[in-house]
């Protein structure tokens, strides 16, 4: 026995919690002579006990420690810290859960609980004997942040980061930052001037020495790892030298080309050389080469010689440690809602176009005129949920801000004596000061009609809107000078492209998926990539800015220290790999690439799910901290010398399912003592050979408890395993083992009650089948080359 590290075993009585059921004396006796040191403690987690273990490690020169006590979720970290101080490497420290998994669940079967305790400890001892030291990966991060999108979210995040002292690169695709907010004359619920509150922030962005503002540009490529990304940014040809242009505006009036201005939602016009709006940041002009006829007139008037009519796109490269996505939204295309006549009648507009119509600097200079026909607007009908909450004709979700901006515009219109009707299906005004805002709109005399509008028809110069008044059960046919559609806020192709490049998943509506929708809403599924604003779903400016502040601080936090990365990574023995690429297909993190005909794992991307390992036909893969030899030693240690009648190995996913098993223990749910649990990152770590190995060494059944597909910590790895289990079941039959001896379940944490039944049903199935017959075992041992 004296091969490998000198190991100490400590068994905790946990007062009577363990000692009242498990014969701790007996357990200690069993390990005497088997390991270098073994003893029991009343409370292993007490300070004197922990100090005692540490002293023993130092005094006796122990190289491995097994602590048999409560669940590792309780004290593992404390034990680790203390033992690492004593010079132990974490790979040589194991906690064996004999409270939640033995004494609390086998109260009626003390002998079974004691046998199980012995088996589990032996498994851990054997595993530690095969351990190799683990060192966390250390990585230097680049203390710079890329913010993509210069709307209110990107502006706020950049300013906060810069204030902290972080270097920021803010990339905006349009000639000026400002996003949608700069298009609004006023903002709900305060009705303050949007441009007045945003313009100073935009100016601060351009002046802040920590912010590298890159406008009229798009991110074209992102590579690297969290903490160290290389980003290629394509600068569109601007036709104007940013350094030289003074923003004097001499060029614009001489330009003969007039085209619609995007800033005015194309209701107004601009020249081919232009600033989108007077307070643009940067203030420099831009040549729109899509419409410029290269006449050269502007060149003649530009005193500082800033205009470059043969400008070409340029590419620059940035290195950043973290990224904040703040690319906002677009409006759903109302052309898809053919019954509302958008695009057909000039007096059907979107909410965004209405913002421009209401702006004193808008296309009508604040006069309320119907676009194109220029008729005065005396009555306006709003159609809310024009494509929202309507999966048949638009988007399934509520767009959240439409009710409120319609109320805002209604108030502005009422203040100018315009008659306003809002056709709604529910007025949703949750949030601070929003219900009050709704009431104020009613007070000002806006009319509300509950009922979805079915169609908009031309009626001489006006529009006839047909719907129902559900309050009165009557049909409504109203005439308006102008109809405003409130279509949903949607994600953009740009965002989708970006998400793909960053390998950040999006949800079913194309919004960036949060790491956790409730508990971690500003992080994405990728380390070091954060998101803020409407890019994660419709929301108002208040929430957008709060998110931006939060995302900025998360980025700071992420970059504030050297990154210590868990070394639980997959490894490839290059000499065995023939470059077939099977593992590449499987890896949920795309961490594996082929280089020089061999697979290579990017340790910083690998999550340690283990899904790739069974996929390798050459057995060229392994995992640090959970190696093939460790896993096999543990299985063998648990099973081979055991005296239990029926032995079942339960592989349990380590976070969700494991916690459910702990909860079953906490609730003292009783189940048969035949189960011996081995935690794994996900069931996809398991090879068929592990299962065969277990059967060969004495298991009568093997159980897999996997996390739910979408709730486990390793993403798709938890999905893959179910199909694999199906395949393994077929292969077991080929080996002469009835497939009922392999069980697969998914366990949610709240499902812990269900475990009692799961364990009992499987136990009685195996009991019914009887122990695996010795011939099959002999055959398996032979095949696996076991002695």
């Amino acid at each position, binding site marked *: 026995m004296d091969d490998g590290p000198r190991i100490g075993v400590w068994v905790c009585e946990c007062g009577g919690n363990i000692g009242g059921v498990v014969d701790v004396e007996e357990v200690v006796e069993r390990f005497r002579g088997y390991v270098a040191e073994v003893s029991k403690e009343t409370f292993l987690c007490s300070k004197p006990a922990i100090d005692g273990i540490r002293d023993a490690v130092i005094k006796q020169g122990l190289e491995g420690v097994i602590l048999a006590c409560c669940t590792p979720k309780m004290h593992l970290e404390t034990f680790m810290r203390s033992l690492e101080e004593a010079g132990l490497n974490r790979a040589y420290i194991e906690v064996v859960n004999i409270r939640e998994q033995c004494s609390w669940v086998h109260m009626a079967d003390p002998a079974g609980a004691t046998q199980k305790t012995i088996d589990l400890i032996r498994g851990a001892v054997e595993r530690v004997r095969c351990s190799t030291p683990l060192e966390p990966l250390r990585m230097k991060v680049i203390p710079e942040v890329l913010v993509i999108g210069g709307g209110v979210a990107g502006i706020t995040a950049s300013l906060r980061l810069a204030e902290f002292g972080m270097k920021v690169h803010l990339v905006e695709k349009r000639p000026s930052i400002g996003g949608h907010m700069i298009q609004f004359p006023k903002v709900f619920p305060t009705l303050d001037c949007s441009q007045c509150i945003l313009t100073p922030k935009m100016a601060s962005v351009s002046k802040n020495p920590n912010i590298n503002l890159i406008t009229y540009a798009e991110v074209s490529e992102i590579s690297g790892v969290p903490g160290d990304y290389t980003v290629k940014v394509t600068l569109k040809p601007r036709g104007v030298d940013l350094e030289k242009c003074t923003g004097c505006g001499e060029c614009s009036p001489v330009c003969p080309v007039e085209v619609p201005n995007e800033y005015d939602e194309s209701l107004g016009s601009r020249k081919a050389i232009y600033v989108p709006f007077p307070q643009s940041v940067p203030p420099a002009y831009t040549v729109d080469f899509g419409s410029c006829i290269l006449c050269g007139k502007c060149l003649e008037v530009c005193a500082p010689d800033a205009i470059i009519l043969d400008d070409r796109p340029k590419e620059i490269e940035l290195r950043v440690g973290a990224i904040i996505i703040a690319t906002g939204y677009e409006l759903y295309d109302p052309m898809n809602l053919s019954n509302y006549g958008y695009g057909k009648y000039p007096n059907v507009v979107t909410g965004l176009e209405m913002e421009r119509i209401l702006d004193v600097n808008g296309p009508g200079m604040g006069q309320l005129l119907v676009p194109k026909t220029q008729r005065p607007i005396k009555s306006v009908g709003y159609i809310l949920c024009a494509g929202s909450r309507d999966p048949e004709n638009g988007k399934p979700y509520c767009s959240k801000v439409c009710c409120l901006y319609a109320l805002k515009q209604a108030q502005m219109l009422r203040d100018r004596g315009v008659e306003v009707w809002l056709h709604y299906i529910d007025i949703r005004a949750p949030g601070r000061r929003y219900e009050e805002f*709704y009431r104020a709109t009613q007070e*000002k*005399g806006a009319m509300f009609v509950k009922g979805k509008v079915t169609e908009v028809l031309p009626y001489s110069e006006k529009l006839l809107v047909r719907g129902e008044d559900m*309050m*009165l*059960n*009557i049909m*409504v046919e109203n005439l308006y000078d102008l109809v405003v559609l409130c279509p949903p806020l949607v994600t953009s192709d740009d965002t989708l492209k970006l998400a793909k490049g960053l390998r950040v998943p999006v949800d079913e509506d194309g919004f960036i998926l949060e790491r956790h929708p409730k508990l971690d809403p500003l992080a994405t599924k990728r380390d070091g990539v954060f998101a803020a604003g409407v890019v994660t779903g419709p929301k108002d400016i208040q929430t957008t800015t709060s998110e931006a502040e939060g995302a900025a601080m998360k980025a700071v936090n992420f970059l504030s220290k050297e990154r210590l990365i868990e070394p639980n990574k997959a490894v490839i023995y290059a000499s065995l790999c023939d470059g077939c690429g099977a593992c590449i297909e499987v890896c949920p993190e795309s961490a594996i690439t082929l280089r020089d005909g061999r697979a290579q794992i990017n340790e910083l991307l690998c999550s340690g799910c283990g899904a790739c390992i069974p996929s390798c036909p050459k057995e060229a893969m392994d995992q640090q901290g959970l190696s093939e030899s460790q896993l096999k030693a543990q299985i063998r240690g648990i099973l081979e010398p055991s005296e239990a009648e029926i032995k079942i190995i339960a592989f349990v996913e380590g976070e969700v399912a494991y916690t459910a098993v702990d909860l079953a223990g906490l609730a003292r749910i009783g189940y048969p003592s035949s189960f011996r649990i081995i935690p794994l990152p996900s069931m996809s770590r398991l090879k068929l050979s592990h299962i065969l190995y277990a059967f060969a060494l004495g298991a009568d059944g093997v159980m897999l408890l996997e996390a739910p597909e979408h709730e486990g910590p390793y993403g798709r790895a938890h999905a893959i395993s179910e199909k694999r289990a199906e395949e393994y079941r077929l292969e077991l039959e080929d080996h002469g083992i009835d497939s009922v001896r392999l069980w697969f379940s998914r366990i949610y944490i709240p499902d812990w009650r269900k475990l009692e039944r799961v364990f009992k049903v499987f136990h009685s199935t195996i009991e019914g089948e009887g122990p695996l017959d010795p011939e099959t075992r002999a055959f398996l041992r032979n095949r696996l080359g076991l002695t």
Partner: protein
Amino acid sequence: MMNSKNVLDSVPEEIEMALGVSRQSYRYGAESIVFKARVEELSGQNINLCYQCGACSSGCPLSKEMDLLPSKVIRLVQLGREDPLYSRTIWICSTCFECEVRCPRGIDIASVMEALRQIMLRRKYSEVRLESIDPEKLRGLPQIALISNLRKLMA
């Protein structure tokens, strides 16, 4: 119980659209604006504030007897429609103020009812004629019922 369709059909005439377009209208025209303003003036209430929660109707002890629920009276007035003038509801309302107590938007519905009765009375319409009541029955009626009806008459 209320059957709004019938009530609405019984409205003598429809208001025409602004613009002079001849088309049955839901939205108010000039007359309806005047009517709404008059009710608001007589009752002192901002009727636009009603968001149709239904609390007034469900609190009203007499709503079972009404042909138009109090909340619908408010809605119709909000739209400037005169329908409630021709309903029995405004005469059944006993001015108990239960609705006013319950209205989350602070509308005094009973005063709106009162305003509607006033408009009708000024149009020389009366719902209760004392002489039409059998003197036997009259003696049997609780005094308070008579007084509240007379109050309506004098409004």
